[in-house]
């Protein structure tokens, strides 16, 4: 009996040793790491992203990565950055967090990307935040307005791109207080972080009791009649929307059917004029959207950047419909190219993160970038936009938001230089 036990112990010990030996084998050699950063060769830099290219969310977002890729193609035609072309690996996650985990593992472990760029969506990207952190992959310019990307202590390699929802809510709330003084203000928000953080921002500007009514919607139900009816009955005159484009259109369309026409102030996530006209139809869209207020932090309308992006869209993106997503995608590409150029002749993951934290990136937004060692938010302010006779453009009012206050500032657009290719 005891003999039997002893032999079993030996077997167990041998197994443990074997496992330890195997584990030791799988640890990479220190020399191998120093040679070159993952995803970087003498002629290419490979970055990856996860985007909803199929499924219900594709309608709103699938054009973004195509625009980013078109911008990279443009840069590559001009010789790339530091002699390297940028390869963009786009993986479809269908806006399903489980799929996001799979495709991001593929990007990191099989495609060995240098960095993950502009991963789209709060629920989707949240599911890979820890994985990217543990693998020390730079996680750049997340495509979502959640405040969760700005946690440099916990996630030192993660950086946001969108102005966060709190900032947008605060700016719109302040605009309502300044320009639509005394009117009953209400909020319609998505029933997740988007809605709650936006509401937090609005209350920062208007005070906790400054709102007449707050309604929420769920993306699984495309009938918002009950909520719109409630706001109409509550006497709302200004409605601030934390809605995606489709639900902005549903809210405005449903209200019009009920014969109700309040002032609409929408987050940039659901305030893209061409997209909204697509939902509401060419006939009614322009009428319903006259005077529609939204926020933006990227160039729009008659701007030299927009002109360049239109040209790139025609030359490298097959002349796809040009809208806010196109400008957004190309602006993300520009910011990455700028960071890459600043990361040095032989970029490493560390030098890339350092370049962004240096605070020297300029980007192409209308407010200065906020990046620094302690701040991983891109935009801490937004400009107010309005639709007038079918053209959506800045009205000149710009707000800067910090933890406690909202203040009006002057917009600081960045001039276009070197044909939109960042110089090293």
């Amino acid at each position, binding site marked *: 009996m005891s003999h039997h036990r002893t032999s079993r112990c030996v077997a167990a010990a041998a197994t443990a040793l074997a496992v330890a030996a195997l584990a030791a084998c799988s640890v990479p050699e220190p020399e191998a790491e120093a040679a070159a950063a993952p995803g970087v060769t003498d002629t290419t830099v490979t970055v990856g992203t996860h985007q909803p290219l199929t499924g219900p969310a594709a*309608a709103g977002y699938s054009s973004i990565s195509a625009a980013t890729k078109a911008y990279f193609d443009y840069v590559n035609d001009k010789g790339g950055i530091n002699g390297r072309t940028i390869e963009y690996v786009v993986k479809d996650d269908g806006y399903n967090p489980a799929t996001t985990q799979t495709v991001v593992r593929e990007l990191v472990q099989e495609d060995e990307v240098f960095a993950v760029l502009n991963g789209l969506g709060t629920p989707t990207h949240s599911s890979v935040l820890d994985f990217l952190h543990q693998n020390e992959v730079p996680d750049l310019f997340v495509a979502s307005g959640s405040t969760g990307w700005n946690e440099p202590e916990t996630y030192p390699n993660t950086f946001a791109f969108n102005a966060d929802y709190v900032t947008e809510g605060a700016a719109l709330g302040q605009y309502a207080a300044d320009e639509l003084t005394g009117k009953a203000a209400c909020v319609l928000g998505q*029933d997740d972080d988007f809605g709650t953080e936006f509401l937090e921002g609005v209350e920062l500007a208007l005070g906790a009791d400054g709102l007449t009514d707050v309604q*929420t919607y769920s993306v699984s139900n495309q*009938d918002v009649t009950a909520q719109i009816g409630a706001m109409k009955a509550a006497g709302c005159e200004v409605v601030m929307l934390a809605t995606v484009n489709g639900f902005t259109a549903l809210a405005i369309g449903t209200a019009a059917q009920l014969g109700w026409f309040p002032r609409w102030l929408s987050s940039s996530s659901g305030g893209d004029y061409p997209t909204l006209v697509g939902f509401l139809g060419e006939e009614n869209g322009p009428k319903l959207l006259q005077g529609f207020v939204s926020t933006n932090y990227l160039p729009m309308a008659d701007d030299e950047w927009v002109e360049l992006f239109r040209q790139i869209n025609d030359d490298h993106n097959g002349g796809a419909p040009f809208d806010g997503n196109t400008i957004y995608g190309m602006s993300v590409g520009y910011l990455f190219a700028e960071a890459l150029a600043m990361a040095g002749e032989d970029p490493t993951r560390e030098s890339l993160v350092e370049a962004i934290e240096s605070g020297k990136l300029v980007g192409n937004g209308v407010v200065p970038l906020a990046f620094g060692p302690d701040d991983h938010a891109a935009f801490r302010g937004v400009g107010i936009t309005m639709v007038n006779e079918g053209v959506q453009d800045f009205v000149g009012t710009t707000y800067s938001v910090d933890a406690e206050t909202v203040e009006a500032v002057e917009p600081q657009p960045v001039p276009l230089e070197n044909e939109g290719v960042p110089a090293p």
Partner: protein
Amino acid sequence: MDRLVFLLATGVARGAVFALFALSLVIVWRAARVVNFAQGAMAVVAVFVAFGVTAATGSYWLGLGSALLTGAVLGVVVERGVMNHVPAGNPLPGMIVAIGLVMVLQSGLGMLFGPQHRPMAAPFDERPFQVGGVPVLSPYDVFVLVVAVVVMGVLALLFTRTSLGLQLRASAFAPEVSRLLGVRVPRMLTIGWVLSSAVAALAALLLVPTELGLNAHSADMLFVHAFTVAVVGGLDSPVGALLGGLVVGVLMTLVTGYLGATVAPVAVLVLLATVLLVRPAGIFAAIEARQA
């Protein structure tokens, strides 16, 4: 009180579409003992055809006719081409094949028409009538309700008052005996699919103008809600589909209006769980002997 009336009216309009789609699930279940998970995707294909026909001819009614026709043809194709080859006697293979069909149809539509939503105009005004200052049903809602009631009435007459209806019911409940008595059971099965698929196409066509617009996923949530309705009402029962649809539509709107949008899907699940616990076969299920 105003608010309650408003919410009830909104819920009834919505419930009518749920009821109609649930009815299509009931028909195919009664005919073939299959829960057709591809019903939503098939219906959307028909709506795309209707959209094209309406755009080309300018007539909503030609579009509606083409949706019904496409639905019917799809019913034949899916039954004869796909479901007929699935082993009988076990419901699982049929369900899995149907789910596969959903993927094929939705991906195909996505490849052909892209992911964007196409706005569809309703044939009637969508601005609601005001009764005592309270907005209630719009002319389009009334149209949807009338269509739903008429379709259900016609189908009820067909099933209970005609020889074809008798043969359909007979071959569904006792295929062997029916065959011995001269009923062409395979043909009846196909007719069941045709009716079901055409009704589903009609329901989806009625729904799309009230939502975001047409894309490959337009009927996803409709299918989910209608499936709930069919289970609540009893998969065997057309009356259950009608009442279940109205109950679920009104419940969702009332809960959204009084408790918030987040709670609405929970309320529907609670209803579903309660019904399954208390009366597993559904509120209006037929007698046990018919279950086999």
